[in-house]
């Protein structure tokens, strides 16, 4: 039974790169994609994934708004969320922890690191 990871990312290149890396991970992962916070909420509520990779700055609804909603809903409050953002300042890290994110991963990414993180949270 493959595990589902929801990638919430508005930038296409970033999305493609994550898809590229995950596809070559040899991990049994099904990658769901949402382009903004609202879409992420819809998808997460409809079919709760095992992990959420959330970009924080997005149009329509950014990660700062979406994560608290996900964390406040019973269906999704158990799902670990990895903040996937270019904001790498310590206060930003602290803030993501505050709103309920399990991890803070700052861009630019490293394929092996990212995969390691995913693998760790999915307990694969």
């Amino acid at each position, binding site marked *: 039974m493959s595990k589902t990871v929801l990638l919430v990312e508005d930038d296409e*290149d970033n999305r493609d*790169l994550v898809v590229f890396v995950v*596809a070559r991970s*040899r991990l049994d992962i099904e990658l769901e994609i949402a382009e903004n916070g609202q879409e992420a909420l819809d998808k997460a509520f409809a079919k709760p994934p095992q992990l959420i990779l959330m970009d924080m700055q997005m149009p329509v609804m950014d990660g700062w708004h979406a994560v608290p909603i996900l964390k406040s809903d019973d269906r999704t409050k158990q799902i670990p969320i990895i903040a996937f953002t270019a904001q790498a300042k310590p206060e930003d890290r602290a803030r993501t922890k505050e709103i309920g994110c399990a991890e803070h991963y700052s861009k630019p*990414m*490293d*394929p092996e690191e990212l995969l390691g993180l995913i693998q760790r949270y999915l307990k694969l």
Partner: protein
Amino acid sequence: MAVKNPNPVQLNPASKEAARQCLLLADKHLKELNFKLCREQLQKAKELDPSNPYIYAFEDRIVYFEQQEKKKSDPKAARPVVLEEVQEAVAKGQPATEGAKAPSAHPPDEERRRKEAESRAAAEEQRRKELEARVAAEERKRKELEARIAAEENKRLEAEKRHKPAHHDPTEEQIRREIESRVAEERKKQDADLWAATEARLVEERRKQEDELRVAVEARIKEERIKKEMEARYLDERMKKEAEIRAAVEARLAEERMKKDMEERILHERRQQEVEVRASMELRLAEEQRKKELEARSSIEARLAEEKLKQEVEARALEEQRRKEAEARAAEERKKAEEMRRQLEELTQALEQEKKAREEITTKNLQNAVKQLRASMEVAWVNGSPKEDVGRSLHDIAVSLSIPPEVEQSVQREVKLEMYSRAVKEVISKRKLLRNSSSTLEWIRKVYQVSVSEYLENESKFLLDLVADQYKGTVLFVSRTIGSKEDLTPRLKSSGFAVVPSQTPEVALEKIEKVNPNVILCDSEFPEGGLSGMRFLHVVRASSKFNFVPFIFLAEPGDVGQLQSSELKPNEGFVKKPVDWEDLTSHINEKLQHFREYISSIS
């Protein structure tokens, strides 16, 4: 009436006229050939005017006409007359008879003509004689008439003498006599005139006749002469002809003789030839006999020889036959062997062909199989090395397609490298999003299970693939900074340029031909003793090949003024040191754009 008054002196003009009329009538009758009436009229005229001399002339005419008529009406009768005349002429000893002596010599026409001419001449002669006789008769008559006139004059004078004394006085008588004498004189004169005229006429007539006769006679003589000449010529010609004929005859005779001689000779020769032929025939026969004998002998000998030869030949032929048979057998054996060989060859060829065909089929099949396998492998290898179970299934496919393991491995390797190359390209295109490109590439190498040795083998290919997407051109970079911290080479490379670095213009000149750069970046200053940047530019521009290559100086602050004042071309420029990267790349792009436009305008 004229008889009653025969005195011509007393003839009145009326009787003269009547006589003339009678003569005219006579002339008319004569023309009508009525000779009887003509003579009657002539007689009348004679009675009326016996002094008319024409009457006598007319009689001659009648005679002439009668003769002519007789000749016409009875030419046969005329001939004996002519002959008689001729005979007469002959009797008289005239030379005209010459033709008569040899009448057979002349042709009958000519003879006849000659006789006629002779008779005519005789007749003319006769007529001339008759005319002369008549003239003499008339002379006589005239004399008689003169005598009569004289007598009558005397009578009249006597009568006058008788009448004069009685009737006239002597004066009157004298006057009368004088008148009478005058009248008489007058008459005498008239008579004399008349006579004279008549005589003159007669004389003229005679002369005329004589002249005519003479002319005729001369003409005849001439004719005669001509005839004689003609005859003489004729005779000459005849003689000539005869001579010719004789000559011809003699010539013919001579020819005939010659012919005869020739014939005789020919005959003689023929005889001789015959004799020779006979002799030669005999000789030939003898020779032939000899030959035949010889031939017979030789033929016998030849037959013997032939028989010997035949025997030998037969012996040889037998040997030959045996040999041939042996050869034929050998040949047949050889043929059989060859046939066997051929069959073998054909069989081997067929086998080989079959093999080939099979190989072809197998290769084709293999190719198809490989294609199939490759397609499956590509699907499996898209995201890196497949899981074990997928790998196993791929191997199963290869086995099922009867692909040999080595082929399977090579195909797998090819597919792996291909997929790796694609992954690298994809990652490189998004390298801005990656924290570390090299580590990512390393991760990808692991994902695709590309060994380090495989990577090194194909590095250039991967790099080319990497560069191909971003390649902007080759930069000949001439700078003292190369290898130092200020070196722009890495940045230029990462911007998509292939960089050929050179620390000095001299080294750059050595490389430029091979490099064939799209842009030249060059420091303005170099250590003393070598070429300066400007000198290097001039050297490069001296070559037509590099005349249009963009050239950008990296100018020391002290050289900016000099570069600004120097006349740089549109494909030349400078960037002030320390180099502002944006300024430099925009300069390079600008010059390259200019260069491309220039190239496209040429083409």
